[in-house]
């Protein structure tokens, strides 16, 4: 056995790690592997060309773009945002569970691009989740806010990844069809997408459980608070603003004093 053919794998790993253009990395890895296996250069180029041609099925997904683009011209994204904006925002966790379901269902119908970090998480989901968290836990600190916002982004990823594979015409499904076809095994895209369903359901259950757990932690007063049931809202903030200058009485530079006001 020729162990040096593994160099191709190393080239892919190193090339991706170095952030080189992935197409370049893949082509170099393919040609290096063929040469090491003892084939002449032109034969390797021909073999790669044949494999590329036989894998065209993977790239047919882009025939969907004119349809998606046309609908976007008439406000598809705005519509998706309206739907999300109308979600009930009783608690952070429940809001994000609803968004997770929305994201998974829409992705499974091939509508992955109606939502996303730039389209929906930053303008809508993260601020809505943050606002709900403030209601549940009025003296939430900066770290708490960060956790809520990060969880909003995480929820988008989980919903996207574990919804899209239920749709037939997605890159990963057709990559599997193409790869297995190259190796003499025929599978139907529909078979593959059916096998994506159990993982999609489990992803929903696991991530939802975490979101609802986060709700419980947000609603229960954190142990560091100590004061327990002091009046919420203005009273708490005023109290903190009053104590801050005292803490930093003599050594604190004046800029730190204003920190207390940022809370209100």
């Amino acid at each position, binding site marked *: 056995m020729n162990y040096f053919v593994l160099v191709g794998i190393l080239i*892919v790993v190193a090339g991706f790690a170095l952030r080189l253009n992935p197409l370049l990395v893949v082509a170099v890895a393919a040609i290096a*592997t063929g040469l090491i296996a003892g084939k002449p250069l032109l034969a390797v180029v021909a073999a790669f060309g044949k494999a590329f041609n036989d894998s065209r099925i*993977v790239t047919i997904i882009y025939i969907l773009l*004119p*349809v998606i*683009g046309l609908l976007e*011209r008439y406000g598809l994204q705005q519509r998706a945002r309206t739907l999300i904006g109308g979600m009930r925002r009783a608690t952070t966790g429940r809001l994000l569970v609803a968004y997770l379901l929305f994201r998974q269902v829409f992705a499974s119908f091939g509508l992955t691009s109606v939502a996303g970090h730039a389209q929906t998480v930053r303008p809508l989901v993260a601020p809505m989740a943050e606002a709900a968290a403030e209601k549940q836990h009025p003296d939430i600190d900066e770290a708490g806010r960060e956790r809520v916002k990060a969880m909003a982004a995480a929820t988008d990823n989980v919903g996207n990844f574990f919804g899209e594979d239920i749709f037939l015409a997605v890159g990963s499904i057709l990559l599997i069809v193409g790869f297995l076809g*190259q190796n003499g095994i025929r599978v*139907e895209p529909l078979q593959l997408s059916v096998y994506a369903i159990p993982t999609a359901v489990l992803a929903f259950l696991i991530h939802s459980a975490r979101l609802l757990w986060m709700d419980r932690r947000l609603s229960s007063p954190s142990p560091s608070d100590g004061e327990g049931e002091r009046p919420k809202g203005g009273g708490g903030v005023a109290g903190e603003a009053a104590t801050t200058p005292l803490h930093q009485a003599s050594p604190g530079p004046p800029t730190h004093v204003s920190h207390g006001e940022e809370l209100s």
Partner: protein
Amino acid sequence: MIGLQPLYGLTGAVFAAFALLSVGDRTNRKRFGNAAFWGLIAISFFFGDLLGDLGNGFLVLALVALAGFGALGRGQPPTTSAEEKAESSRRRGNALFLPALVIPVTALLGTLFLKNSGWIEPKQVTLVSLGAGVLLALAVGYAWLRPPALAPLQEGRRLMDSVGWAAILPQMLAALGAVFALAGVGDVVGGIAGRILPEGSLFAAVAVYALGMAVFTMIMGNAFAAFPVMTGAVALPILIRGFHGDPAAICAIGMLAGFCGTLMTPMAANFNIVPAALLDLKDRNAVVKAQVATAIPLLACNVLLIYFLGF
């Protein structure tokens, strides 16, 4: 009988339109690069079977060169204003989602009812129905929305340009997997794995595949890149040929095991680092940290799913 050829023709026509419309787009400084890239893909879909293996090889190298030297830019086709979009969205409501739903519904119905009709090659019925669904959705869109004639292609080009050269990465990776197979990479890794794995332990082999998919995805930042490597090395020789598992279940869930890896790596910058920046998070790895506790139990579930559904 209708096979893949008409579908390839349709795809070629869409890419040819992207190429031609790119030429005339003066908003894109690199418009000829875009036109060449989409044009070569159109040629591949129209004439790939006539070019010969070496011809296809040079076509791929030309695509790689265009991408590698940064020859692609981003066009800004004419589109509606934000106000027009908002107004249309208000007026048309959730019905805007329906034309998009036509596509998967047609694909599903075609698969269920046209398989033995004699019109369509039974093995390709899903993808042929999908192509029909796209045409049907476009027809619905034209009839209902009455867009300018070229609008779907121009809007499609806008989306295509935003994908850029990454559009052919999955196809390139599938081809890489084929070259690996030709060179015997799978045999070598399979041989090593065979020596390490406990003799005849199916569960250990499944776990190595699923965890390997996740770990390789974490290293490369991309489940698509990990898939041909790990599947060629472990799934094909050991799970499918050795233990006679179901290739559809093993590969579909194996890919999802890779997605669990995507959730846990800063290398997947688009999903994990860019949103942290978009949300002004102080910790650039905050999104990864929020995802780990979902990814690990889900990965364990995927190991069990492959073990129980694949065999």
